[in-house]
């Protein structure tokens, strides 16, 4: 996370100095910020889960949706979150990372919607301060992140921009 954060700051400065392509530069900044937010979210959530994996297993065991798979998911979900965070750090894997973030956030959101409609009371198992949100706040929060990942992938997905991105990246590494 620190490496990603540091690199983002460096790149941000480089981009500020580079004035030729203001449009691309803005897009690049947006992509960087979105990736950074996702890295922050996933690393934080994964750490909170792994720090007390026993408790997380118990919480998942109480979920009407996942109780049959609690032990596998207790390790699987945080590891997946860390993997996606790692993909978002490197520019070469960032697009895949954003797609993965999108998919994971969609899954979390669908999970919440099902829980809200089919279960009376279920403890949230997201870890740390994320647990303090109620389910509706959680839903809004998740949908926000889904939108962010869409913005990220759309910005990165444009062919011309993609090339420009790699060019920018090269400059960044050169500096």
């Amino acid at each position, binding site marked *: 996370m620190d490496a990603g954060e540091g690199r983002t700051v460096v790149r941000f400065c480089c981009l500020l100095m580079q004035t030729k392509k203001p449009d691309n530069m803005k897009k690049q900044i947006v992509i960087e910020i979105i990736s950074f937010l996702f890295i922050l979210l996933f690393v934080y959530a994964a750490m909170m889960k792994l720090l*007390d994996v026993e408790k997380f297993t118990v919480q998942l*065991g109480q979920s009407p*949706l996942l109780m049959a798979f609690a032990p596998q998911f207790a390790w699987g979900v945080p590891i997946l979150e860390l993997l996606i965070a790692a993909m978002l750090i490197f520019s070469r894997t960032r697009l895949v990372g954003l797609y993965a973030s999108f998919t994971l956030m*969609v899954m979390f959101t669908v999970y919440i919607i099902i829980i809200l409609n089919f279960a009376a009371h279920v403890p949230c198992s997201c870890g740390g301060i994320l647990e303090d949100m109620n389910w509706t706040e959680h839903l809004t929060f998740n949908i926000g992140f889904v939108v962010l990942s869409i913005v990220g*992938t759309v910005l990165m997905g444009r062919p011309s921009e993609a090339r420009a991105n790699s060019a920018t990246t090269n400059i960044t590494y050169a500096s």
Partner: protein
Amino acid sequence: MKKTFINLGILFLLGMVIIVSLFAATYKIRHAPNSFLREYQRPFLKAIPALDVKFNSYYIAGITDDHIYLGNITAPFDVLIANKAITASQNVKIRIKGVENATVYKSAAIKIDPPYFYLADGVKPVLYRGKIGEWEAERFDYDSGAYFQQLVPIGKTSFAIRTAEYKTLYNTLGKVQIDSPRIRLNSELLQKQVDGVFCTDGMLMYNSKLKRLVYNYRYRNEFIVYDTNLSIDYRGNTIDTFSRAQIKIGYTTSDRSTKLLDKQTTNIRSCTGGSYLYINSNLLAKNDSEGWLDKNSVIDVYDLTNNSYKFSFIIPLYENSRMRDFMVSENILIVLYDHYMVKYDLQPGYL
């Protein structure tokens, strides 16, 4: 741009399919039909108009010849009395003699055993007794060290209890009474399978006609019939095949608590009346259609005199809600649904 949206669309569907299939898989695992058959008696119940009791926190405390008594888990001193035709009801509050603003723990329960009513709080522990109609209770003299989780009166001076064994803390059946020995436990009755606590959970009942106590396990296909001296008559089996408690126990070091992670409840609740044991089963039989248990509560009936399965019947939904509590007395069946009390006449010829 277009390609990105197609990708996002595919991934969106993929994510949804994964979560929905997880949900379906869990549902299927938990609702798989078991290899036993039920014999249904239909039509069996004759419904009689419901009584709106206003709260969904009532439980059935007891049924006498003329009245039905409900206790309220959120207001332990409140009693709702309905006439047998359930056309009228009144609320009374239990007073404790000589004590203003008495308090009891939330687990306290009211038991009706004419001419007395009891307010039993096994956490404190304390037992109050008073006369039905007067609704003034006095502290009943019994061993003050006898904590209990369940208590049923088995006469004027003795009670069957389920408690925790002193050393192991395993669930144990016992008896408390005024005369010596004031407390007696029989640790042989309940048999440990997993942890001795969750795995032996169940419902304790007294059948006054047969003068027998019945303990029905919640997580396995067994009920124990024993007499008031705590000697066992027999261990009966329900029709399903769950002879081992299917539960998983989790221990969290951070908040030092043991929790029930996963469980396959076999018997949701049970009651006894006449010579029969009525068990609200949570298991789908081979001849039950999928979703059957979502739409109905299934009651399996066993004859306690010869340890045999008689038949099953269903208690349907009422106002789209499932049964919360039920009790059989003579030829009537009282059922609580959300905030309604419904009376069914058990049609003669079967019982």
